């Protein structure tokens, strides 16, 4: 099987292009997706290829255009709604939480809302407090939607197809620092991957390191360093944040008896807290110590680079947490 | 049995109950208990060993004579010389 090097951005673009070519109901809408080619260049060349009807630049009104996308989905289309970042999605929270997530339930199953909403998320590029949020956990809290976080080029390439096939709203979080990352993508006929399973990215028997999205690469790097110290880490990529794949988590903790959750959200009320609670519920008697969390500091994300780094989970934080958990 | 043979026998039985004593200097007139913290169980096993090795039946009343190395030597040599 051959593989090729591809950037995360190009994987996203390829996935969207494949979807646009395969199904005439699919269209892309969002700020700067057309003429500009996408704020993160994920739709470069699309306007020329697919035209204005299918690549729609929207006004600067998240509530408005997300609502319009939901309406289009209700009408039988398959929109990919691009919200530039999770920070701006707050303006569309009512549409997502009160309309997209509830219409199937409130209509007694008569209406379905097959939207896919893509958002960039996370910190690390000195965009300061209002533009550096990791609010995946807020969306993962809401019944009626699915929330996924592709962290590898394989998932960036393959999750979109599965998401578009889902008759319910799916929110895809793409960590902004991943777009430029390059990875190996195995050539295949069908790149579609599941969106309901976590994946073990690295096996080990001393500690389970559980993470998602932009923190995966840092966690894997930490695992490398810890290996040299004789600590074998099992790295679990959650992939799907709602629903969480409990089975993989519990299986890992049953093996290692120790767990650390790495989450770029703030600690309090984080996704890491939910993951910890599930492990405590389902694997309490297998734990050899308290579950640790490596999360962002409880401050608005700073602008200055050294402060932003200090406020968010880094490789050395993960390594230190692991050594503490191993009681060294 | 010659004196050196008796000495070796006593040593052998002592080391059988307390292998860590091998190589250590044995004070002939100090009790084993005081020198080496041999307790009553060890003492009994030691005496059983002596009894088997010499073929002598050693009554309990005679135990006090076996508390030191020189005591063991003279007791065994006396008993082996005596008839019966």
């Amino acid at each position: 099987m051959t593989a090729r090097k591809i950037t995360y951005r190009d994987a996203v673009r390829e996935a969207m292009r494949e979807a646009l070519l395969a199904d005439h109901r699919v269209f892309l809408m969002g700020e700067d997706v057309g003429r500009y080619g996408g704020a993160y260049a994920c739709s470069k060349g699309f306007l020329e290829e697919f035209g204005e009807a299918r690549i729609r630049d929207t006004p600067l009104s998240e509530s408005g255009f997300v609502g319009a996308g939901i309406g289009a989905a209700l009408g039988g289309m398959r929109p990919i709604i691009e919200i530039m970042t999770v920070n701006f999605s707050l303006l569309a929270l009512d549409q997502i939480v009160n309309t997209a997530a509830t219409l199937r339930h409130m209509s007694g199953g008569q209406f379905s809302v097959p939207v896919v909403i893509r958002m960039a998320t996370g910190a690390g590029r000195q965009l300061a407090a209002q533009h550096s949020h990791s609010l995946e956990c807020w969306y993962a809290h809401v019944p009626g939607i699915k929330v996924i976080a592709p962290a590898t080029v394989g998932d960036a390439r393959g999750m979109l197809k599965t998401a578009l096939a889902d008759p319910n709203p799916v929110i895809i979080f793409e960590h902004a620092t991943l777009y430029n990352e390059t990875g190996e993508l195995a050539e295949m006929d069908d790149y579609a991957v599941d969106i309901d399973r976590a994946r073990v990215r690295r096996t080990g028997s001393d500690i389970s390191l559980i993470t998602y999205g932009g923190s995966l690469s840092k966690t894997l790097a930490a695992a490398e360093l810890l290996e040299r110290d004789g600590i074998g880490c099992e790295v679990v990529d959650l992939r799907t944040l709602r629903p969480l794949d409990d089975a993989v988590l519990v299986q890992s903790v049953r093996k290692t008896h120790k767990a650390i959750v790495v989450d770029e959200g703030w600690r309090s009320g984080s996704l890491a807290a939910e993951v910890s609670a599930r492990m405590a519920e389902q694997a309490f008697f297998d734990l050899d110590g308290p579950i640790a969390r490596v999360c962002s500091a409880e401050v608005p994300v700073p602008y200055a680079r050294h402060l932003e780094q200090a406020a968010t989970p880094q490789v050395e934080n993960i390594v230190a947490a692991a050594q503490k958990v191993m009681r060294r | 049995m010659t004196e050196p043979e008796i000495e070796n026998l006593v040593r052998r039985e002592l080391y059988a109950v307390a292998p860590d004593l091998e190589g250590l200097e044995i004070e002939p007139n100090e009790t084993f208990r005081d020198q080496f913290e041999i307790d009553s169980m060890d003492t009994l096993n030691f005496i059983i060993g002596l009894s088997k090795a010499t073929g002598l039946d050693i009554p309990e009343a005679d135990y006090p004579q076996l508390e030191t190395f020189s005591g063991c030597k003279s007791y065994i040599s006396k008993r082996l010389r005596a008839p019966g």
Partner: protein
Amino acid sequence: MPSLGADMDAGTLVEWLKSPGDKVRRGDIIAVVETQKGAIEIEVFDDGVLSEIRVKPGDEVPVGQVLALIDGADEDSEPPPAETATKAAGLPSRPMDQEPLRTVSQPTADGPKISPAARRLAQSCGLDPGSITPGKDGVIGLREVEAAAHHADTTQPAGIDQRAMRNAIASAMARSNREIPHYYVTSTLDVTPMMEWLGAYNARQPIERRLLYLVPLLRAAALSLRKFDDLNGAFVDGRYQTTANVNIGVAIAMRKGGLITPAILDTASHDLQSLMSKLSDLVRRTRQGGLKSSELSMGTVTLTNLGEQTADALLPIIYPPQVFIIGCGQIQVRPWVIDDAVVPRQLMDVTVAGDHRVSDGRRGAQFLRNFGDLLARPEEL
């Protein structure tokens, strides 16, 4: 004085239309008050008798001030509404006063922290968590339990880690001192009958079948303990549980220092000869290795014998989770009184220590009485 408008602060009483002693009914006009809005009639809302008028005509009275008192006709027979409502609903009248529930077992603040996985492993190995040495950070994790299990099951000759044993003893003794309130009871026992009997018995036996005096002590202790539920068992998680079998742990000194107390399981079921073999075997395996974890973890009570040429008495320390320990001093010929005469007898001081959460000195004394009685009739042991 009622408020007859949002901007009214006070009103002037113009005239009273009723006098003290008059019966009044709800809706009756009782007085006239002058306000900025003109003269207003004040009506009553209660039935009763006008008992006292407090303001005179011409007085300016602020809103809220009492103008007059009316005695209600059926005031006294009406109970306070709050009580009736709760009584009618069958609710407890003062629920907030109830003592907050107390958990039966108080968590011991100083106990070692043991992880769930470690606790489970210890249980499956038959190890008492209290006997496991915690790590440097005070935590018992899988690592510590595995180390303890390894020691318990070792069959390597002379493979005992002195430091680990010393740590284990230290940990157990410190815990005992911390958690167990000890009481001590001492008795001097005349063991002359036992020693004379033993001498005669041993004289009849080939050397391999002779008994040490510890053996009748163990048998007497085991038989006695069967009658004392509160001295034979384990105190775990704030609760005492008596054990059906008496498994006496015998304190065996290691020659290089250190103490192990492996148990003779179901001590009372062995006769003297069988006890001697078991004891001999235990000592050998203690010294050379090969003790079983059940022997180390299933002791229900301990007997420690100082032995010959040692000291008269000791104050023993209970090995948690046990609740009782018997400490025997050396046997010495000392003066004693029998039938008003002072006679030399072989005497042994026995001190027992008990867990005061489970038993008290009286029980310890009863045990000693019983123990002594059995030893006084050695032929029946």
